[in-house]
């Protein structure tokens, strides 16, 4: 019973974390921008994976960049995770999705844990710590809590931190989240697909891998001491694409025996073998954002021949939860099916 309810409970848990969530919109990553372009597998990608998009020809893509919050209010300049969801449009109306974010790890190793985590991460009222507490912290060599942003009255961060203090699995993500900052551009951040996937090579060798997008323009965040700007990321990308495509390298880390293959809360060492799987060129921002952004529904379980989900329990739960979410908001599974 519980098991069957899980996808709906996960979506409800996300919605509960954003009290101003607007029905009919995404419960998380609500504000975003759809972009089109193409992906081309690198000359060696096909040696690792038989999937169609790694065979070396241009594959059309639809990408949606987003701010991770489920609130309809835009705060581009706040330090927070960003999303990059990519749909590779394959032949015969087939498609595969790769959903990534700027955090390297996730907060929960299981869907059950995520329900607990999201309860604790509900927004709490925030105000600046009193000055004497800041001094006490400093005397303990503890960085004082940052003041809320101007106009910010609530935040999920204190709850996430409390949860992480009591659940070690959430600590890397909480630490990463505390240091993220805000990107100067959606095209200047590294996005991690976090979970492990299994790829099949032409000789049928299977490998456990993790994907991430690295921006060719380099990574840069805004000045954290300057007042945050609420609305600049979409305009910046429009401006950027007027001159030149935005490019990302798709990198793939290959897991080894002993690596946490099924645990999205644990990053793999940075010195794992890293393969360049291809180059993404983002060219145009379609005028029809309703079709190419709002109605689109990406799904981390949308796989294709040669590319499988690992048994990571969060990945499996997400695949179902995103479908529940799609139905709740009337999203279409594919921009061409208008389903």
């Amino acid at each position: 019973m519980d098991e069957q309810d899980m996808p709906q409970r996960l979506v409800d848990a996300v919605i509960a974390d954003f009290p101003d969530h607007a029905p009919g919109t995404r419960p998380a990553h609500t504000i975003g921008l759809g972009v089109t372009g193409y992906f081309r597998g690198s000359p060696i990608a096909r040696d690792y994976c038989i999937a169609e998009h790694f065979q070396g020809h241009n594959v059309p893509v639809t990408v949606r960049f987003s701010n991770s919050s489920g609130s309809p209010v835009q705060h581009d300049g706040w330090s927070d995770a960003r999303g990059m969801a990519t749909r590779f449009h394959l032949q015969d109306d087939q498609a595969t999705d790769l959903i990534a974010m700027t955090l390297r790890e996730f907060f929960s190793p299981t869907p059950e844990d995520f329900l607990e985590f999201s309860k604790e991460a509900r927004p709490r009222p925030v105000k600046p710590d009193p000055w004497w507490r800041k001094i006490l912290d400093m005397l303990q060599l503890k960085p004082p809590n940052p003041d809320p942003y101007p106009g910010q009255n609530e935040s999920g961060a204190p709850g996430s931190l409390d949860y992480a203090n009591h659940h070690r699995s959430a600590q890397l993500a909480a630490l990463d989240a505390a240091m993220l900052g805000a990107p100067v551009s959606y095209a200047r951040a590294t996005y991690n697909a976090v979970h492990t996937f299994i790829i099949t090579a032409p000789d049928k060798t299977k490998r456990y891998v993790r994907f991430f997008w690295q921006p060719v323009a380099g990574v840069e965040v805004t000045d954290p001491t300057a007042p945050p700007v609420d609305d600049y990321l979409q305009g910046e990308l429009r401006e950027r694409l007027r001159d030149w495509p935005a490019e990302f390298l798709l990198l793939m880390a290959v897991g080894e025996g002993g690596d946490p293959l099924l645990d999205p809360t644990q990053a793999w060492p940075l010195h794992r073998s890293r393969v360049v799987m291809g180059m993404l060129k983002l060219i145009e921002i379609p005028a029809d954002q309703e079709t190419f952004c709002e109605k689109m529904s990406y799904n981390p379980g949308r796989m294709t021949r040669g590319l499988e989900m690992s048994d990571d329990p969060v990945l499996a739960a997400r695949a179902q939860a995103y479908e529940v979410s799609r139905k709740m908001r009337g999203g279409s599974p594919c921009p061409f099916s208008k389903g």
Partner: protein
Amino acid sequence: MSGNSSWMNSLVNRMATSKFFNYLAGHVLVPYWAWRTPVYAQHGGPRATIPPGDNMQRMMNLILPLKDKTAVGRAKAALAIASNLDEIYAGLDNVGTVHFARFVIIENNMCMISSYDGDFSNYIRDFVAQLGTVFDSVVALIEGGDDMIPTKENIDAFINWVHDRDVYQIPDTATDLLRYGTIGHSAAKADGPDDLRLMPRALILQLHKNPNSLLGSGYRGYPGLSVAQIRHKMGLGW
């Protein structure tokens, strides 16, 4: 008195980055907390782990303080290397597990910096077998090195001596810093509660014990490959 008086708040915010507070932190708070919550100095070099990729291109950063801290002492160290170049190159080729190695003199320290494949003890053991006399001439110039000579006859003690001088490597998984524990308290508290906001202090206290450190395990342009694989794939022969 309002705890939130906004001018006081902004004064305190500014204080956090002030010269005064930096001085206080470095000269008073660090020694105080180092005394109140003493930490173990962590060993140098990479941690022992199982995945093969962790055992490739490992980083060694030996810092060996010269006995003679004048230009004459530094020149002697330079000569000890220069006059043994044939031995060093032949030794490195024969050991066969070294990607890069260099000798650097920094502030009266002879630094030996390399990336190597495999186990640290075997790496040093192989070197002593190949380069014992070169090591002897270098170690003779280093503080605390006399007891190690001849290194060929003190191999195990010498391996430990070298290991102690390889710099501490801050873990890639930063939260490991919280697991070091403090002296007198068990580090093995299975599940917290922790205080993530004390991570900076954990780092500061470890760097107080270990002033030299490698930040994370370092970048590799071709991670996961051994010297042997690269030479083979590039057609460079063996």
